[in-house]
């Protein structure tokens, strides 16, 4: 502890240099925290998607659709708590450039499966009473200024209704809060029963089923039971957990991991070079001072640790600041990802990297300081 002032003085010997070095380390760890945080966060969000939710899609492809008659048969499978479904409506409001994530569903069952969706019970009751009713999330309602009781015309590029038109009129009967599930979660629901009646074609089909099960540990067994029901039928099914489906879709976007790691690698390499250079320079300039320390009786080992600790203090402080900055940016991402925090693993990785950085960049100059010969150093040789 008594060496603290000495280390402090060493760090601030050249203020501008230390500040600039520190700032670039802060920037690097800010970037590291953001990129790795989002990357890891994606993974955790996907992994934590409820394992007690299963998605049943057509085996051939999830866009192929399944008969609505499957609902009651799936519901009868042991271990199944609740069944709902989604039919993609391909909606848009006024102009095709304003797409609306609209789905036809069984709303009561859907809100029973997704407990994170917050809705007033009276809205759900109103939805059951109103055939042409729709439930919309608060973000969407605010964006288009839709209020309870509004009648809104929605265009669709797929479904023609029985009037021969592709504009459907709906009545807003309620809103709900889906912010816990993130911005990607669909926010516009119409009654499948009404849709099925009013569509000119494609009736009796849904895109996929969402199944809530009693016991997450039984996910695989229940999936197999559901798929076995329809094997060798014209519409074979494929049942997987919500998290497995999301992982599959995430994987299709491309190798995010690789890109993130490549960028972080480039940043850290650059940084390592910069910090090492600063430390080297600082030790070179202090040759005389270090020799004086040795003359005063500081052992070789002590001089080595002094320089190493200096490097460590620089890196650790700057890295902590960078990661903290990144963590404060995370709540801003809630509209996109839903509940989302800086994962602890990223903080741990950051700490490890900071240590590594401090050691690698500090070791060569520290060793040089250790090897200093007093007479030569004082003579300026």
């Amino acid at each position, binding site marked *: 502890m008594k060496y603290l002032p000495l280390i402090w003085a060493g760090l601030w010997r050249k203020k501008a240099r230390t500040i600039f070095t520190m*700032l670039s380390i802060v920037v690097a760890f800010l970037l590291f925290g953001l990129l790795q945080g989002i990357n890891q966060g994606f993974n955790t969000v996907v992994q934590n998607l409820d394992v007690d939710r299963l998605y049943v899609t057509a085996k051939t492809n999830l866009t192929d659709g399944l008969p609505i008659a499957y609902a009651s048969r799936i519901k009868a499978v042991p271990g199944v708590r609740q069944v709902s479904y989604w039919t993609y409506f391909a909606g848009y409001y006024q102009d095709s450039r304003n797409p609306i994530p609209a789905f036809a569903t069984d709303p009561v069952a859907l809100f029973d499966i997704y407990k994170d969706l917050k809705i007033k019970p009276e809205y759900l009751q109103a939805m059951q009473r109103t055939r042409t009713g729709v439930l919309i999330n608060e973000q969407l309602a605010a964006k288009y200024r839709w209020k309870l009781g509004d009648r809104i015309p929605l265009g669709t590029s797929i479904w023609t209704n029985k009037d021969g038109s592709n504009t459907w009129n709906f009545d807003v009967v309620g809103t709900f809060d889906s912010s816990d599930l993130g911005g990607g979660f669909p926010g516009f629901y119409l009654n499948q029963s009404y849709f099925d009646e009013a569509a000119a074609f494609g009736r009796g089909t849904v895109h996929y089923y969402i199944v809530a099960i009693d016991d997450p540990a039984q996910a695989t067994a229940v999936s197999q039971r559901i798929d076995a029901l329809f094997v060798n039928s014209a519409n074979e099914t494929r049942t997987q957990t919500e998290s497995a489906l999301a992982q599959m879709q995430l994987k299709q976007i*491309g190798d995010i991991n690789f890109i993130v790691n*490549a960028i972080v690698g*480039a940043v850290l390499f*650059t940084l390592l*070079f910069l910090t090492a250079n600063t430390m*080297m320079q600082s030790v070179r300039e202090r040759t005389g001072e270090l020799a004086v320390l040795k003359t005063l009786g500081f052992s070789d080992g002590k001089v080595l640790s002094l320089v190493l600790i200096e490097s460590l203090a620089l890196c650790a402080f700057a890295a902590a600041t960078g990661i903290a900055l990144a963590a404060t940016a995370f709540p801003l991402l809630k509209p996109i990802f839903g509940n989302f925090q800086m994962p602890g693993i990223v903080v741990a990785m950051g700490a490890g990297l900071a240590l590594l950085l401090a050691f690698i960049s500090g070791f060569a100059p520290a060793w040089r300081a250790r090897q200093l010969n007093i007479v030569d150093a004082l003579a300026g040789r």
Partner: protein
Amino acid sequence: MKTFRQIGAVTLMNLRSLPQRLGTSAVIVIGIAGVVAVLVSVLAMSTGMLKTLTQAGAEDRVIVLRNGSASEMGSNLGRDAVRLIVDAPGIKRDAEGRSLASVETLRLVNLFKQGDGTEVMVTLRGVGPQVLGVRPEMKIIEGRMFRPAVNEIIVGKAAKAQFRNMNLGDQITTRGATWTVVGVFSSDGSSHESELIADAETVNGADQRGGFASVIARLESPQAFQKFKDALSSNPALAVDVSREREYYERQSETISKVISVVAYVVGGIMAIGAIFGALNTMYSAVSERLREIATLRALGFGATAMVISVLVEALLLAFIGGAIGAALAWLFFNGHVVGTTAGGVSGHLIFELTVSAQLITTGIVWACVIGLIGGLFPAVRAARLPVVEALRAV
């Protein structure tokens, strides 16, 4: 004139002493190389994707979708509608007088990537009998064309290279049908090379879905567009959107290239800030190492401008070298690197090559020079403001 001579002399002298400051100078070069390499590599993704998608669009082709469709995947045209569209005026006709239009339908097929076996959704495109007349760039490079009414498909060159089970004679299952691969086609490197193609009626017959997604037609000339569009929009029996094919594909890639650009500029921007601090460090220490030299020159009567310029030129030169190294690294490692994604505006998995274009290299080097300029400016001003007497004494 005197100032110019001074600037020349001081700058040259300064540059000649650069090798003595190799270590600190390398900080600028490597720092900026990192920024530019990341920026250029990430932007190479959107450039490559854009190139592959726009390659699919020809000047004299139009795409007709159901009114309000954002893409082919979300479009549904009935049989009556497509008949009216195919017969519209403005469409080119072949020697036998048949209209050069292809009525198309889309499905997604689950396939596995070679290598890691990732499951991806690939577009199966059902096309009309005139497809080769409509898309003359499409060439069978292996095997033969599919025959209508039997379950045969041809696969794109990129699809064959990326997915499993794409060799002649292999079989692919979709709802209601098993298809045999009978040929491989190329299409000028366009996004169609990521697709599988079969006869539209056969595709629709297999799963008993009636509708079509789009009509692609070749016009008599690019100028016939308005005539064609007017004919369709004035027909009360039709509710369709007509676009030039190239514009359609540009629109499809808009969102994703915007996302990639934002990522590139945000990440690149943050890195650039870091690099500026590195550059400031380097240039401040360069100035302090030259303290004696600068003071001496000033005492001899050299002007402040010459000092400023000499420092700026050094910073710019180092930045330029860094930028060039970064761009070269990006080009070396990533140009032509094949990647696939389902994030594009098109429905199925899109395969494309990262493209480091001349324009991207220029962007990278401009960024490098701006970083160098900012990093050099403050130290340069310091060099100019040094009080001569104190500086001489300090050494």
